[in-house]
């Protein structure tokens, strides 16, 4: 399976023989290159729940299947995938009630015997705590904090990805910062 980590990689619409490849084959090629990157984006919202992230990843590629022609014509599929992954994650988070999500995580974390559970145990406690702290925020604030702090996006990029203004991003971040400070986190206003 060929993989390429360059986020802006353009996928050629021609096969090796120079012929046009059909949409399904193209989607498969995109999937082979970007499945892990999309999974990682979903994991940023998942608060350690791999099954949930996997479900989101599947939804993202199913959407790509539907929109294959449009995305293919536009080029740079990873940018589209990233945006859709963020949307899918936010949508799924909104659907779940906070209590339901918390309970699901309580069940999912100790029950998992996959290497990820063990990795989580070994990982720094701070990383887990900060993920949990961000996961406890309302969805809009959470999306802003995930993109800006867990994925190093700028305020402009975050606004574009979430389809809101920079002012709204700034307000959401300010509210999130206030909440996190109340929970004993030390972070800058900027």
């Amino acid at each position, binding site marked *: 399976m060929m993989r390429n980590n360059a986020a802006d990689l353009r996928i050629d619409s021609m096969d090796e023989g120079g012929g046009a490849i059909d949409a399904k084959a193209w989607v498969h090629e995109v999937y082979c290159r970007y499945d892990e990157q999309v999974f990682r984006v979903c994991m940023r919202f998942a608060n350690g729940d791999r099954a949930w992230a996997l479900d989101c990843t599947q939804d993202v590629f199913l959407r790509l299947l539907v929109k294959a022609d449009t995305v293919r014509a536009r080029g740079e599929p990873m940018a589209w995938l990233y945006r859709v992954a963020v949307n899918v994650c936010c949508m799924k988070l909104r659907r779940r009630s906070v209590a339901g999500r918390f309970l699901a995580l309580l069940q999912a974390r100790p*029950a998992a015997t996959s290497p990820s559970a063990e990795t989580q145990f070994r990982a720094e406690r701070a990383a887990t705590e900060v993920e949990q702290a961000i996961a406890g925020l309302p969805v809009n604030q959470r999306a802003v904090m995930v993109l800006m702090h867990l994925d190093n996006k700028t305020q402009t990029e975050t606004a574009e990805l979430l389809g809101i203004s920079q002012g709204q991003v700034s307000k959401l971040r300010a509210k999130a910062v206030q909440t996190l400070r109340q929970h004993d986190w030390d972070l800058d206003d900027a």
Partner: protein
Amino acid sequence: MRDFNEATRAARERLDGETLSAAESAWLERALRGAAEARPRRRVWVLTGAAAALATVAAVVFFMSRETQTPGGFVVLSGKRACVTALADGVEVLASCALTPRLAVDGAEAELAAGTVLLREQSALRLRRGRATFAVTKRKPGEQPFVVRVSDGAVVVTGTRFTVSQSAEGGAVAVTEGTVELRWADGQVSPVRAGESVVWPRPAAKAEPMPDVTDELETPDAPSPQHGRRTTKAAPPPDANKVLRQLLQLRTQNRTDEALALLREARNNRAYTAVQRERFGFELCNLVTQARGGSEACACWKRHARDFPASARGEQVPEALRKCAK
């Protein structure tokens, strides 16, 4: 005050290292391929005026796709459809399936665990392997009963909820509601009531009680045993999830010694099911390996392999033992 930037840096590093396991990757690819094959090719020449008709068709396809018919009269009601492979005479659930598909068959609903193979056999079903939980609607007098054949006989039902598991070595039926009959291959009949379970093959001529292998770490509210025979649950089972939550808490706080003591006690507590104790033992050995390592870890894995030879941990236990042998 905790340093947010420091913590997010650590979280970023961890998240950047996340990769899909082979099973997850295979599951995703299969789901995508299934969807691609199911999706009809878009026609660019479809007129805009046909949009309304198209929307109707899309709605019908959407609702129909929620119930996928497979050979043998199985209808996938929910769960990842890509997890369910249609066989010539039944269905198989992928071993890597993370969710439990729900199927309708013969007026009953069945939840199939990962790796389960359920086949149609004339008017009955055969559980070739895996675990299936059935909810069977009440049959009218004279109506054909719902039958699940297993290696050593058949489970005959007239309306109840029960779980059947089958492996190469044998299997079990556990009843949650109502009553089923286990008709042994030799013609004997064993009624199994709510809260009871029966295992096969029989060690002697008679069905024996069994440790509950069907409920993993769940502790369902089982009715109290009836008739004083084959009692499987004399008292409500202890809450295994509580132990795991406690464990998580202790490990998060780096209270390793207390976590080890908790797991040791749970593993040795016969009030838990064999499956639960196996799980506690597995977690214990993992923790010993991390915290102590060396001979103590090896001794733990050896004891685990000895106490739980039918461990459901795949390659993880043999792998640990191999490392010890080096």
